[in-house]
């Protein structure tokens, strides 16, 4: 039994999971939707912007158009005013973890009346971590861009209120970058004090290290307190 397995090549073993290349993926995706068939919009984009459109990827019937980072506002204005994509469904960032053009920012735009959906993306290099904001075109991008800033550190030029979205301002890291550990950096977020008048707790696992906070009637009165 064992030698027959050894003589087989890895790709022919019944339980190997070889990552498939996109070309060999399922041709007719059962979940592809009619709204994402926007080839005409892509053609119009290419016609208007020429070489600012770097790449068009089609997968599962969806079009992802990669444009030049500096021209995103023009692209969005074109899509909103001339193609009718007036609704921003989602915007966010992505860490490709490559040497060049490490980050990607994507925008999911929707044309409600004509029932169309398109995705625009752009790439950001680690050396120039800034993207022009699209909040003048789509006010809905306000919080989404803040979230992208919070999670990746990509700043958006012209954003009215570029603060962190989820993490407190005191936090110094960008969590969704691939090098940030899942458990976080110990001490980057202090815990409350163990007694009301104490110092903030730096250790994230005091209970595991045997320091459980005392009940209030067990607290020792400090000398500085009066009465």
């Amino acid at each position, binding site marked *: 039994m064992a030698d027959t397995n050894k003589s087989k090549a890895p790709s022919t073993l019944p339980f190997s999971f070889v990552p498939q290349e996109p070309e060999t993926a399922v041709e007719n995706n059962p979940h592809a939707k009619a709204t994402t068939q926007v080839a005409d919009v892509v053609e119009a984009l290419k016609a208007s912007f020429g070489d600012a459109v770097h790449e068009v990827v089609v997968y599962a019937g969806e079009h992802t158009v990669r444009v030049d980072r500096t021209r995103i506002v023009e692209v969005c204005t074109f899509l909103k005013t001339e193609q009718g994509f007036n609704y921003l*469904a989602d915007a966010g960032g992505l860490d490709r973890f490559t040497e060049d053009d490490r980050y990607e920012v994507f925008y999911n735009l929707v044309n409600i009346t004509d*029932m169309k959906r398109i995705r625009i993306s752009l790439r950001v290099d680690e050396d120039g971590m800034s993207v022009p904001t699209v909040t003048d075109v789509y006010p809905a991008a306000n919080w989404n861009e803040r979230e992208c800033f919070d999670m990746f550190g990509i700043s958006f030029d012209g954003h009215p209120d570029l603060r962190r979205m989820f993490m407190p301002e005191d936090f110094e890291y960008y969590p969704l970058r691939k090098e940030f550990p899942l458990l976080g950096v110990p001490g980057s977020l202090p815990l409350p004090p163990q007694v009301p008048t104490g110092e903030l707790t730096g250790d994230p696992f005091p209970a595991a290290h045997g320091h459980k906070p005392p009940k209030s009637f067990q607290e020792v009165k400090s000398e500085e307190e009066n009465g």
Partner: protein
Amino acid sequence: MSSISQTDFSETLKFWPRHNEALYRRLETKHSWLEDVPGDGSPADPLEHQMVLNIGPQHPATHGVLRCVVKLDGERIERCVLDIGYLHRGVEKIAENKTYQEFMPYTDRMDYLSPYSNNVAWCLAVEKLAGIEVPDRAQWIRMMMSELARISAHLLWMGVGLMDAGAVSVFLWSFQFREDLYTIFDEVAGARLTVSHSRIGGVATDLNDTGIALIADFAERFPEAIAGWEKLLNRNRIWIDRNLGIGYMSAEDVVARGLTGPNLRGSGVAHDIRRFEPYLKYEEVDFQIPIRTEGDALARYFIRMDEMKESVKIIKQCLEALKTVKGAVRTDDAKRSYPSKDEVYYSMEGLIHDFMYTDTGVTPPKGASVYHAIEAPKGELGFYLQSDGTGSPWRAKMNSPSFSNLQGLETLLEGAQMGDMVILIGTVDPVLGEADK
């Protein structure tokens, strides 16, 4: 004239001084839509009528840990800054470390009022990414349970919204029916709240007779209950006074601000993912999508009540369909979905497939990325997945409706009266678990 005397919090606050500084600075520099000077023209002392109030993350309104820092001019909210992130877990980062199937329980905890919807949304997104087809019976089951989850979420909205407005008995009535729904979920999925019944490629188990009987019974009793509540509330002077004209947003405004769900439809924008991008079997059932043009809180109230009634219709049609549509509840392909428990227990291959599926799971093509949205009770819940060829996603971005809706809440609160704040939060209906990811 600044009414905030200090923006340096390092003395008074031991924790997050920079965060609060930034927050209060934003409040101060924000453009105010109200006049600073009161009506009689004379410049009055701001301390007499202006106040900065922190409606902190812990407060009696039961919508979750939302912090609103408001600048009040008398009773009117002049400016407001919303601070979220008090429930942030980093679920998107967790997703990068789990397989697609392992991640299912995390989706339950996002919009925890309708966990089945989130499960279905995740499954559909992964199925689109990997190109997995789902058998018909599973689609009908998923649709029915998603509509039950919609009723559950709207019931909680109704109970909690009315309780916050003062009518505590509605909370008890809505929870009575939610308990019935929980019994149904318990019977069908094994858990009351965090179900995780959907599996990639189908659902975990088929419905048994008790489950079907419970659902049929619920669908019979529920419309009567809604009729009773509507009789009480629809022409109720107090309820109408509290909601009429409150929280008005025009159609252009809601689209520009990115609101979603009943907030869009309350202002006349005809956008519902069930008709925009039909998924599961929504094209084969007959139901209406309630849309109103008034754009105020009362319109959204009517929409959610009507949506509950439409959900009952859909559930009845699903029950009919399930009588005839038989078959497997998951696809048969071992690389795409779990084998049935019979196979796992009684055949060697089934056991190995089960193990491999848990260990590695679905492996979509490398570099593929998709976005799939569903109409969750709160709005458009979508997952943007990018695969790296392994069993866990490279990037899983969650487009949660409450996040988009809360952006609009900031605008709604400005210019509103303090007493309407609870109604406004209720009408936008945020769930902080999904807004904070």
